[in-house]
């Protein structure tokens, strides 16, 4: 099962008082990597079926269609008009996992505005391989060996399936859906749910007070020589 999130395209320049109505939206880059990994796993014959999931308002279906065009056999859209808090998203995904019983849940490690995917593994009691840069599945042993990018370097863990993986940038290079696959995706089934139908209580324990622009840095100067740079660093900035 792959979760995909529709976010403001990462290349868009944001101005203060973020108004997302007319901004270009696309799949969160880390979710693209998750989809690509699902594709690789399916192509290796290690998965029979891939289900793509998205949670959000009606327009999230676009993102789901991309997932369907790339690899997914079916899609699930949990409709929620208002942005849900991480705990509720985790609970929704947990319910879907209970319904669908996937052997592997893959998500992006972070989105443009949050990074709480580890919560789902906690609710499921599943082992987690977060910030994965390499995943090797062994079907007979029912384990996944995961390399994780951590502060100290690259950590290797072995996880019993079913497990949850969150993707890091270097896991793979997402490819593009071909036009024939995009056309096929239009007829792949998407099941709709609401959080209520999944018996998930929508709780809001976080509230956005405001969104502001960060303080701007004072403009710098272009110097003309290395001697000048060393001098400035010494006598003006006092850093060396």
């Amino acid at each position, binding site marked *: 099962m792959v979760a995909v999130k529709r976010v403001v395209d*990462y290349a868009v320049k*944001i101005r*203060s008082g*973020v108004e997302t109505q007319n901004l270009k939206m696309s799949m969160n880059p880390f979710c693209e990597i998750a989809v690509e990994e699902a594709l690789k796993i399916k192509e290796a014959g290690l998965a029979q079926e891939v289900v793509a999931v998205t949670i959000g308002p009606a327009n999230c279906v676009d993102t789901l269609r991309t997932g369907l065009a790339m690899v997914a056999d079916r899609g699930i859209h949990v409709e929620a008009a208002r942005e849900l808090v*991480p*705990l509720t998203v985790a609970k929704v995904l947990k319910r879907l996992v209970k319904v669908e019983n996937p052997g592997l849940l893959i998500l992006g490690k972070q989105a443009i*505005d*949050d990074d*709480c*995917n*580890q*919560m*789902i*593994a*906690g*609710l499921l*009691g*599943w*082992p*987690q*391989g*977060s910030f994965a*840069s390499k995943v090797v599945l062994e079907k007979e042993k029912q384990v996944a060996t995961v390399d*994780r*990018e*951590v*502060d*100290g*370097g*690259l*950590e*290797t*863990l*072995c*996880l*019993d399936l079913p*497990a949850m993986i969150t993707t890091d940038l270097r896991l793979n290079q997402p490819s593009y859906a071909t036009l024939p696959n995009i056309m096929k995706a239009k007829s792949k089934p998407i099941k709709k749910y609401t959080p209520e139908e999944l018996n998930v209580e929508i*709780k809001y*324990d*976080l*509230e*956005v*007070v*405001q*969104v*502001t*622009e*960060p303080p701007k*840095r004072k403009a*710098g*100067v*272009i*110097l003309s020589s*290395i001697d000048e740079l*060393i001098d*400035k*660093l010494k006598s003006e*900035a006092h*850093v*060396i």
Partner: protein
Amino acid sequence: MLLNSNKASTLVLAEHEGGSIKAQSLSAVVAANSISQDNSVSMLLAGSGSSLQQAAKRAATCHPSVSQVLVADSDKFEYPLAEPWAKLVQLVQQKGGYTHVIATSGSFGKNILPRAAALLDVSPVTDVVEINGAHQFVRPIYAGNALCTVRYTGSSPCMLTVRSTSFPVPPISANAKSDGAPISQVDLSTLDEDSIGKSRYIKLSSEDTERPDLGSARIVVTGGRALKSAENFKMIEKLAEKLGAAVGATRAAVDAGFVPNELQVGQTGKIVAPELYMAFGVSGAIQHLAGMKDSKVIVAVNKDADAPIFQVADYGLVGDLFEVIPELLEKLPEKK
């Protein structure tokens, strides 16, 4: 149930290595101080054996605000795996009833705290850069291009990961409390075994280096893809050596295989805020800037005068890094 009094009690999830407390964990203690004037701070350590016990003794005197050190000593914690750690936090929280639980937002905190929050049925607030009282926090979104102020309105505990660069640790003189905080061992007999054991640590591949830790170094020298090869990257290392600096890299340089992933600075790598950040052959993509734009002084050297990096640099030099670096090596004073 949301506590209305101003009295807070904070559990800090601390990391330790080789018998010492990691510098970033102290930032979590500093952050705890911003939560409330009246806040008792407990530090939780987990691991096994003598290095753990040694770290506990250090924790007891590492900061005047620490009033208690809790130690979980077991083979299960030999490596900082999320599954046992989340259960531990759940156990300690259920016994201690803290109002807040904090970890720094490095790979340890980001891996463990959300999982623990799920077990405790609360939404965490992650990557906090400013604390405005017990339940209001500021966090960057859109690669640091916007700051979002959020209010936590749920039940205890309020769980946070905080950016260590936003909560610098002031130099600490000898602790007034000469014995330090009391150390107590966590009773692990009721630790829920379910889900522990399903993940096993195999190994950690890391570069052995004498360079200072990237996350807390006073000076960072970063190279981008313009260095062209791992061999050329040695120039960056030489310069870092001369300045007593840590070495950083852009995502492009890591992707190209010049340096290992732990040197990556940026939105999806490490966030740093040193006194001096020198960027060589770095174009200044938004995602890279997100990781270093809070540095006190930024120097950029790039052949392209239009490179976005010059918009954040205090001092810029338009030039060829292959000429600039050797000249710097020659002319820079030896580090003090």
